[in-house]
């Protein structure tokens, strides 16, 4: 799996805070895991917001053709 990973640099302050957070909450094994989780959350959130411009245009086209718009 190591081959699938890349390094990311974050500020030491933030890193220390993240380590404390992990110790207190116990839900994550490492800062790497926490960062990966948070990034995934944010990115999948963006995905949820949606459709690409193109998809949305396609949807609107159908709505127009059916008389909904």
């Amino acid at each position, binding site marked *: 799996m190591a081959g699938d990973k890349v390094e990311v640099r974050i500020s030491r302050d933030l890193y220390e805070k993240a380590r404390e957070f992990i110790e207190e909450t116990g839900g994550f094994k490492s800062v790497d895991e926490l960062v990966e989780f948070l990034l995934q959350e944010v990115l*999948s959130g963006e995905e*949820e917001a949606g*459709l690409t411009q193109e998809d949305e245009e396609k949807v*609107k086209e159908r*709505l127009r053709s*059916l008389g*909904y718009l």
Partner: protein
Amino acid sequence: MVSRPHGGRLVDRVVRGRRRERLLEEALELPRVELDAGLASDVANIAHGVYSPLEGFLVQEDYESVLYDMRLSSDIPWTIPIVLDVDPSQVAGVREGDDLALFYNGRPLALMRVEEVYGWDRGEYAERVFKTRDPRHPGVRKVMARRELLVGGPVDLLAEPPEPFEAVRLWPKETRVLFEARGWRTIAAFQTRNVPHTGHEYVQKAALTFVDGLFINPLVGWKKPGDYRDEVIVEAYKALIKHYYPRDSVVFSVLRMEMRYAGPREAIHHAIVRKNFGATHFIVGRDHAGVGSYYGPYEAWDLFREFPDLGITPLFVREAFYCRKCGQMVNEKICPHPEEYRVRISGTRLREMIKRGEKPPEYMMRPEVAEVVLSHPNPFIEEGEAQG
């Protein structure tokens, strides 16, 4: 803002483009399970996000959690188990991690990754979901006839099941864009399996008075004998909306999903589904999704109170009736007059009049709606008739 999908993300498991072509070919080589119309619509509903956050048919842990706690194992509210039943012979030799091809009408509809095959107790299902094992209950009868094993796992939709009401069928992705485009921030959804009478219109308009838009979303698909035919419901609503609703404050589209007649549990399910379509409010009337006298008239309201985290606001509206003293449609909460002034709009009475070919009085049904229903040679589903 339209509602956030249930579980946070609108599921999309519709396979497109080259991958679809490739998987359609692969499907022909896989072990096959032929689906009935109800299961085919479940697969499409999963893939198009109607059942978000479900990505497939329930695995055992989720099934039991839904059955006993009315929540998925992730603690997200979910009240009706969405399950795929098979005969042992259909999954002989199929192992976890294998793919199954789900067929409908002899053609590949979807692929399913098998996560688990497990047994279930249909009587227990009936007891929990319908609160009865009485075989006269149409939902119980249907469940007891299902097959011995359940298969859980995600599905990928390869082809759309046929939809005769395509021109008035919208998926959640589409209603969400539509509501946004209309600038609606609050949307009240109305579930129905009926031709609209004046009582329904009253309830819808009472809700619409306080929200930006009304989303009328009747179910098409299997219903019990004596219920209205799908095409009658659709045409009746078109007539009602055309003559009595402001065009820009209502969206009408159908949802292909079977009625289960599970009363309170199904009311929650109906609300979750409409949340995925983007509705912020859900109208819950008297005896929602009920049948016979298996559920109390306002039992569904109590169940909603157990789900503060549902993410869609129920609008509890009492049954409407005409009051001769008030001179209008009212409900118990706003009319102080005794029973002798009240004229109840009974769905059963209406059906009887229609069966006799009689035009119902205008305080019960709009003439334009009555005309549509009466002009149909046989507006009701008959006993023993396969529908949908």
